[in-house]
């Protein structure tokens, strides 16, 4: 098991390099660069000056050289500075990362718990009952309506009309303690978890139905076990494996979703930073976020594999 984990961790390195390079390449192929974005389209600027600026920012070197300069910096723990403003990226990350993690982790926990519970309830109420029908329709709505729509509706209803919750933002200057921003957190966290809750629920329902139709459920009943034990121990335990795998694979989607939700609620996290950086062609920032995401996804998939092996004895790691 340990050798397996070490091997998987080592695989992360080439994967991260490869994927970062692809992202770098894609950004390089798109028209324009950071300098052209800084300019106002109305004014004509001396091309010599532009070239000078490009040189100062290191944009004149060939692609591979630029990638290497950036990457060797990262290896030394130096993520560079933003092209627009020259702020050290590590400092921006320190500000932004907690905001995104806060949102994603809460959404992940909420959607895993509620998704699994609702899916199980839906499966245990037999097909055709009102509970099952309502949950099935709700699940369908949840996975098919995009997050920004839920976000906007939530803002209109709860922030503008009812005025229960703030429209957006995270830490306002007037806040004195950490707990003051909880009202700001409610809407983005819930909206972000809607789609995933629905996804987990639908999956948990079918995994549970599958588990309950298996022969060992009949065996468990034939032993005279109470129904809760038959369903929740024998059924749910077996249904849990595919659900955990799904949750793991959904995590990248959750991060992708947070880009949109952060925009909608003006949440100062990595998502809104990412959108801004792409617009400004701020390559070092985009690359850093991409690299973080890649590593996160790879680490999560490793954790999922380890968890499945712990939960399901049939899965053996390694071979």
């Amino acid at each position, binding site marked *: 098991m340990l050798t397996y984990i070490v091997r998987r961790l080592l695989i992360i390195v080439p994967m991260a390099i490869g994927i970062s390079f692809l992202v770098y390449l894609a950004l390089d192929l798109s028209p324009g660069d950071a300098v052209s974005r800084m300019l106002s389209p109305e004014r004509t600027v001396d091309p010599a000056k532009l070239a000078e600026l490009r040189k100062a920012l290191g944009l004149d070197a060939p692609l591979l050289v630029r990638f290497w300069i950036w990457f060797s910096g990262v290896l030394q723990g130096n993520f560079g500075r933003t092209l627009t403003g020259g702020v050290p990226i590590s400092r921006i990350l320190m500000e932004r990362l907690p905001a995104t993690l806060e949102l994603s982790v809460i959404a992940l926990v909420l959607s895993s718990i509620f998704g699994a519970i609702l899916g199980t309830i839906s499966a245990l109420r037999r097909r055709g009952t009102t509970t099952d029908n309502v949950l099935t329709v709700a699940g369908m709505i949840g996975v098919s309506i995009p997050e920004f729509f839920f976000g906007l509706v939530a803002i209109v209803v709860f922030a503008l009309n009812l005025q229960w919750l703030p429209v957006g933002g995270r830490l306002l200057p007037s806040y004195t303690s950490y707990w003051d921003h909880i009202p700001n957190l409610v809407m983005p966290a819930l909206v972000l978890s809607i789609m995933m809750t629905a996804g987990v629920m639908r999956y948990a329902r079918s995994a549970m139905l599958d588990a309950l139709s298996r*022969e060992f459920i009949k065996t468990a009943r034939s032993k005279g076990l109470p129904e809760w034990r038959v369903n929740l121990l*024998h059924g749910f335990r077996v249904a849990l494996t595919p659900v955990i795998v799904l949750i793991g694979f959904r995590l990248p989607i959750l991060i992708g979703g947070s880009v949109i939700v952060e925009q909608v609620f003006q949440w100062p996290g990595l998502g809104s930073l990412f959108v801004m950086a792409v617009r400004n062609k701020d390559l070092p920032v985009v690359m850093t976020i991409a690299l973080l995401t890649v590593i996160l996804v790879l680490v999560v998939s490793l954790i999922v594999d380890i968890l499945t092996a712990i939960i399901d004895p049939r899965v053996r790691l390694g071979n």
Partner: protein
Amino acid sequence: MTTSDVALSVKNLKTFFYTNNRCNKAVNGVSFEIRRGKTLCVVGESGSGKSVTAASIMQLLPTLSRIEDGEIIYHSERGDIRIDTLPRNGSRMRSIRGSEISMIFQDPMTALNPVFTVGFQIIENLYYHTAMRGRQLKDKAIDLLRAMGIPLPERRVDQFPHQYSGGMRQRAMIAMAMACNPKILIADEPTTALDVTIQAQIFDLMSTLRREHGTAILLITHDMGVVAELADDVAVMYMGNIVEAGTVEDVLRHPTHPYTRALLDSIPVLGRGRNQSVRAIPGATPDPLNRPVGCQFADRCTHRIDRCDRMPEETQMTATHRVMCWRHEELANAPR
């Protein structure tokens, strides 16, 4: 036969399935008795209602089916219990399941939960039906595995089903079923999924348990060889009815119902050579949702007469031997 010899009586049991507003009379008026410490074999082809009969006794029927009529009476030491009137998963039914009547299934691969150790699954049974707790439970589980002939039970007890071979899984399954020393063991084709060499071992184990613990066995099978080997009593089922029943002598030596005869004729006999005529039963079983009105076997029967358009009555030929055929008298006197 006095009632004290009987462990379980089934009287005129009817279990129907309802799918798409149509009714499948899977078990349509079946009566039999399981004698204490004896083996009753129920034979018949797929779809004859054998397994549904067994599931009815355990009240382990699928959601869309129910016991429509009849009685299932368990003659326990504390008096008779009408099983068919108990709520399906209620506490009284649960206290019988696994402790007084237990069941083993066809495929031990799927019948054991893959994510729990074999020991855990045996202990569960003990925990809910005995006063044993803690270390006692595990020791008992190890003893049970040892009694079932599983080598190194101390180590095996902590292993998962996928670490067992097919035959050992069925032994573990039997250990689980026998944990609380039940009065009746229902075995639903327990060796169909196993190798032939393992089959004999499993049946040996079952007869040993029956002798040592006086457990009555209801064995569902379609293997006439197994019937000849193990049965004390035999019931032959066809399309939801018991067409012939009696002691193993009655049914195998003096088969009367044309279906029983056809079943016995369709078995190749060792030593008769390659050219022996194995007579397969002509035709196929009727559509269960669209059954004939009269004798269910009439369409395939070589002895068919006009009267067969009506359902034949059950006739007691001797004290133990009964048959459901209009022409039983002629047939009983006619040699096979």
